[in-house]
């Protein structure tokens, strides 16, 4: 499997920056075994901390055979290439007013990958104060699409009417 195909397969399972961080930690742990040799089973176990689909892809790619001095360089080159691509992924900061479950995170990620770019990861944040909707920061551009903002705008527009109710 070439590096691009591997990267595309992995991207399916990487939705957020937290997912990416977890993946990079596992990869780093795996590469560390090159300097302190471990059994194959132990190496595979490192990837099994990740979601099953992703784990299988990584095991097949890097830990299907025991690491030997001969294939170690090749594996390392592939890993470095993958890490570079993963680091190159853009992120979209999305602040929302509720704690989403895994399915919802996937739902948002799918939308982003489908409508923006497949290598865009969501940097998900939680802020109850925005009431609803979302704050979006993409490519240095900040946008407030929160219900709080809409409510504020509505209050601003209808301020006179609202204050009129106080009389």
């Amino acid at each position: 499997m070439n590096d691009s195909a591997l990267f595309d397969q992995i991207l399916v399972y990487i939705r957020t920056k937290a997912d990416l961080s977890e993946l990079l930690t596992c990869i780093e742990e795996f590469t560390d075994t090159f300097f302190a040799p471990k059994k194959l089973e132990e190496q595979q176990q490192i990837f099994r901390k990740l979601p099953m689909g992703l784990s299988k892809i990584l095991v097949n790619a890097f830990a299907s055979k025991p690491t030997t001095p001969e294939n170690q360089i090749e594996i390392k080159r592939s890993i470095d290439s993958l890490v570079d691509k993963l680091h190159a992924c853009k992120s979209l900061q999305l602040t929302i007013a509720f704690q989403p479950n895994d399915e919802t995170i996937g739902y948002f990620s799918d939308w982003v990958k489908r409508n923006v770019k497949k290598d865009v990861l969501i940097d998900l944040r939680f802020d109850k104060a925005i009431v609803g909707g979302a704050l979006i920061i993409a490519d240095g551009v900040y946008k407030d699409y929160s219900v709080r903002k809409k409510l504020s705008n509505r209050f601003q527009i209808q301020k006179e009417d609202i204050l009129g109710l106080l009389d």
Partner: protein
Amino acid sequence: MIIDPIAIIFFTVTVSVLAGVIFFLAKSYAKTAEKLHDLEEANRKQISVEPVKLLEEAHHKSQEIIDQANKQANEILASSKVYENNSNQALKDKLAMLEKQQEGVFSKASEDMKVAYQNMITQIQEQDLNTLKSMTKDIESDVIADFKEFRDVLEKETINSEKIVKGKIDEEYLTMQKDLDEYKKKKYQKVDEDIYKILYRVSEMVLNQGISYDKHKELVIEALETAKKEQVFQ
């Protein structure tokens, strides 16, 4: 001092009687002295005749004459003494009567003087009283005039001060009214703002509680769709 004319008369009579007595005595003495002189002349003639005998005789005679004269003088003096005693008694009686009369006169005079003095005092008192009344009236009129003048000045000054104070009070009142209006306006604005903020916060809270999970999802997707439309994603 008033001297009773009766006393004067009595005194004059007494003096006249004594003068008469003295004159009689003097005349007797002069007569005796003349007889003595005659006898001396006769003696001198006899002395020239029989000096010693004559002298003795003369001496004897003169002695007799002197004795007789003394006797007569004593008698006169005795009678004079009786008269004097009577006169003294009468004088005393008269003096007592005069004293009584004088006492009455003095008493009357004293009473008159007292009345006159009282009248005079009453008159002086009345005069003083009138003077005092007059002075009081003068003082009163002066004081009233001064007081009126003072009152006029005071009234004038008071009115001026009142006008100034009223002006200042009006000015202060207007300033205070203005400040108060501004303060009230600010306070009302603050209250309105506070209520507005509260309303806003309440709305936020109500909305937050009222939004369902699916609605949240929908709102997020809606936000992403909007961002896409606005070309936030390059």
